[in-house]
């Protein structure tokens, strides 16, 4: 597994805390593994909860109309990068 950056670790912890993934260790979330479907198995309800947590912590409002949003939610790495680029 590739190492998490500091920012990725922070987002991983936010994901684990927000979605009550009690049985998952944030430090073990692989940055390049899919968050939805096969990987962590998250669904659209999780996407909404995660979006809320991200807006509260980073003041980034996620918009599905944004063409990059699908890519942003693909992995921990892409989500973390999206937040970094769009943070106020």
């Amino acid at each position, binding site marked *: 597994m590739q190492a998490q950056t500091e920012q990725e670790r922070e987002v991983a912890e936010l994901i684990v805390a927000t979605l009550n993934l009690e*049985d998952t*260790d944030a430090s073990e979330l*692989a940055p390049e593994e899919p968050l939805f479907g096969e990987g962590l198995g998250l669904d659209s309800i999780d996407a909404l909860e995660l979006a809320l947590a991200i807006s509260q912590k980073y003041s980034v409002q996620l918009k599905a109309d944004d063409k990059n949003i699908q890519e942003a939610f693909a992995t921990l790495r892409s989500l973390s990068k999206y937040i970094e680029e769009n943070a106020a």
Partner: protein
Amino acid sequence: MPDSDFFPLTDRGPDETLAFGAEGPVRVAPFVEHARRLARRFPDHRYVINLLTDRYQYLLGFCAATLAGQCTLMPPNRLPRTLERLKREYPDCHVLGEDAQPFDCPPRPAGTALYGMPEIAADQLCAIAFTSGTTGNPKANAKYWRTLRAGSKGNAHLLLDRSVLQLNLLATVPPQHMWGMEMSILLPLFAGTAVSHRTPFFPQDIADALEALPVPRALISSPVHLEALIKSGIPLAEVSGIFTATAPLSADLASSLEERFDTTVTDVFGCSETGVLAARRTSRDANWRLSDGFRMITGPDGTLVHGSHLPEDVMIPDIIEMVAGNAFRLLGRHQDMINIAGKRGSLAELNQRLNAMPGVNDGVIFMPGNSNRLAAMVVAPALSLADIRHYLGSRVEAVFLPRPIYLVAGLPRQETGKLARKAVLELFERLSQVNKPAGISASGSGA
């Protein structure tokens, strides 16, 4: 009803607005001509799977299919295996909008003349809605033109304020789901409403799409989207009404929404088999108003629903008590039935799946008291959490995947082998306390 009955494709006048497409408002006359031209181009098949995500295009695709005598299949989700199965079961079908293909559609006609309103046979099979099973073996529910039309007119009567001549609708739920189909596709065809082509998802999307619509506006949604909207704190443009279905709406959420957005929130009760059955304003009313045209026969394990426009009577797992006239109270649900994010499933079936997994000695999937997500406790000494997640992940719908899953030494079964809900919840509560701080994990996340 004699077989020779026909009803028009839409009851709206030729100059009324039917939808707001990506390029602006669309009136009935050019819409119908457009659908007619598209219908002539459709390949010759009995069925069509309409995956179009632009709601205006979906409406156009649905009407063209109906004009071509083709039945629209409504997949319960967009998963590749769901679509594969549909294509196997209905081989004489074509697909609209697969893999985000551009919609192969003739340009909208420039003229506005309507060369006669097309009529559809009352007994034409126009759609099949699938009741989502826990394990993804959906049951087919036939929707004839008379069923869709009478249901939609009943919905207009039950839900819409007749003093509003045109209400502009925005829906967060997909048109492929029966709730989305009834409120955002059929309502514009049969009552004074026009629908936005957009399907907003995140709170900011909802706010933007709502503002883009002219007043008066209504929002068609689900408790999941509405809760995210309230928590986001994002302000909304003026909205006359919010309609919600697919999961129970709490009175708290209903009141918060009404207060924050100065609107009325109507909770709608129904299912894919019957369509919308009843409604109530949850902030004020305990009782549900049954839609005209339905009759309910109460029973101890469920309720038999009769509707003169339905092909057959439907048994629903909800236990009700008629109170006065057409009002009823919802007493509960058959314990086994669960409803998550608009999908209905059986706990018994899920538990069977879990306990059928090689290596699982014992296990229980259940709904914790204060959650909208299932949890599980499993006795499987040789398995990891990742094994269990992987096994279930390929066999049950994502919304039914339990989380968290705890590996335990044993379940608190009584001597008779019975597993009391109270004991399950107590053990779960203890495990949750232990596991709360920063995710102490026995095994990895599959990393």
